[in-house]
């Protein structure tokens, strides 16, 4: 446990918004260490500031208070080492699967040939070989999110943030995608921070689960999930942990 390398750490993050002339506190004094190549799940009730926390790590929002560090070095704003898979898919409808996937390296100014090669590798990895020239409106929900995952990987980040990536999928597709993301992560290890409001999804995927309280979000408890992968969602250990977390979860507002 102790020799694990800390990849990302956030310190004393607090953040609020002004809503109707009132300060609405979204996150309050959150400190967290994320280990290298760990699959960390942030679990919490709906609208509890999970997305805010992720947006702060990714640099979409600047925290009012607190710092963030990668490999012990402080950083600000968005960073090339951090990639993101968005909740609402966020594929650009005017770009083909290939053009969406190679977006990151393209922005970095990589040559077409080189970035195509990397993009192709991840398109193949997520199982979309043959769909490179399709536009997103021709794809199903699950396939779109595969593109989102391939796009994040193609930028070759060290840390991958996933904001309820499967929240909009139907239950069947969701199970399949949970297996997929686990397979992809095992094949291409990265540090993953995965946000969800679904307890089973959290236990199925996470090495560790960070349980947040209701608003303003604070860390309530951190669970180590020491079950062998692939996990059996009806095993007694799984169900026991599920009950334990579920009893400890605040009801959403």
């Amino acid at each position, binding site marked *: 446990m102790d020799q694990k390398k800390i990849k990302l750490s956030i310190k004393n993050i607090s953040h609020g918004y002004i809503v109707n002339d009132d300060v609405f506190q979204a996150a309050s004094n959150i400190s967290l260490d994320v280990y290298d190549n760990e699959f960390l799940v942030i679990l919490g009730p709906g609208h509890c500031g999970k997305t805010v926390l992720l947006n702060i790590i*990714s*640099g*979409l929002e600047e925290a009012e208070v607190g710092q963030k560090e990668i490999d012990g070095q402080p950083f600000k704003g*968005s960073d*090339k080492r*951090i*990639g*993101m898979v*968005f909740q*609402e898919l*966020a594929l*650009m*409808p*005017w*770009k083909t699967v290939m053009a969406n996937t190679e*977006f*990151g390296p*393209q*922005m*970095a100014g990589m040559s077409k040939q080189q970035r195509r090669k990397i993009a192709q590798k991840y398109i193949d990895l997520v199982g979309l070989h043959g769909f490179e020239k399709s*536009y*997103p*409106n*021709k794809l199903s929900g699950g396939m779109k999110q595969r593109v989102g995952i391939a796009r994040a990987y193609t*930028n070759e980040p060290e840390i991958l943030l996933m904001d309820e990536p499967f929240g909009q999928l139907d239950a069947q597709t969701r199970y399949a995608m949970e297996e997929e993301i686990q397979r992809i992560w095992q094949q291409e290890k990265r540090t993953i921070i995965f946000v969800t409001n679904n307890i089973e999804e959290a236990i199925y995927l996470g090495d560790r689960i960070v349980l947040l309280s209701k608003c303003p979000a604070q860390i309530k408890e951190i669970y180590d999930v020491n079950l062998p992968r692939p996990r059996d969602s009806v095993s007694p250990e799984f169900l026991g942990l599920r009950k334990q977390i579920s009893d400890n979860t605040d009801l959403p507002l």
Partner: protein
Amino acid sequence: MKKRTVKLSVAEQKQHNLEIIYKLLPILSFLILIGVWLLAASVENARFPSPTAVWERYLLLCEKPIKKIGLLGHVLTSLRRVFIAFAIAWSSGIAFGILTGWNKKMGAVLNPIFNAVRAVPPLAWIPLITIMFGTGEGPKILVVFIGAFMPVVVNTQAGMSNIKQLYLNVGTIFNANKYQRLFQIAIPSALDAIFAGLRTSVSSGWMVVLAAEMLGAKAGVGFLITRGMESGDQALVLISMICIGLVGALLAIVMQIMEGVICPWTRKK
């Protein structure tokens, strides 16, 4: 080989019949239109020419063209005017719309002036332009330009200032610089709004060119229809009207095809 006849279920048969009915209905409406036309012509023969009279007038027009320019020649004269105006209005309108829609400061400076000018309908410009520049080709193209420029700017601006935050967030996450944000994210995502503007500019430009021609021209469909009016030649007026309608519809179809080619992702499944 034995031919197999497929037996349709009752529901399928019904569906099939419905489809045939939907194909026939538009033809029926055209037949009704011609019927009403015939009826109107038989009641008010002096003021309203029958379809056959219009057809005969068309044949005569082919034999003895007005001002030695055939019908097609008049159409092409009008089209030439609008196309020159479109080329200028589209390039400058899109550029102006992007500038004022994307750059908030530029928008704040230029939009009040633009909105004041826009409140004047393009046709109201004709007297001023005629006094200043006469009735040559240039002034006509200028009037059409005004008519086509406004909708392009309005729609481009709307598209550029309503870009989904989500797409811009993707740009932030992948560290796009400001030029990449503009050319890779903002402009492509505004393309359908821009195209809506282009479509409106086509119909408005086509309308304005006719008005400009009606007020003084030596050729063009607008001239033709005025000539018909002045000489009490209703058949000629109707021929011009049909022509104007057909060209307008054709332009709309061309725009649709163009959008499909330039923005293939908007094509229906």
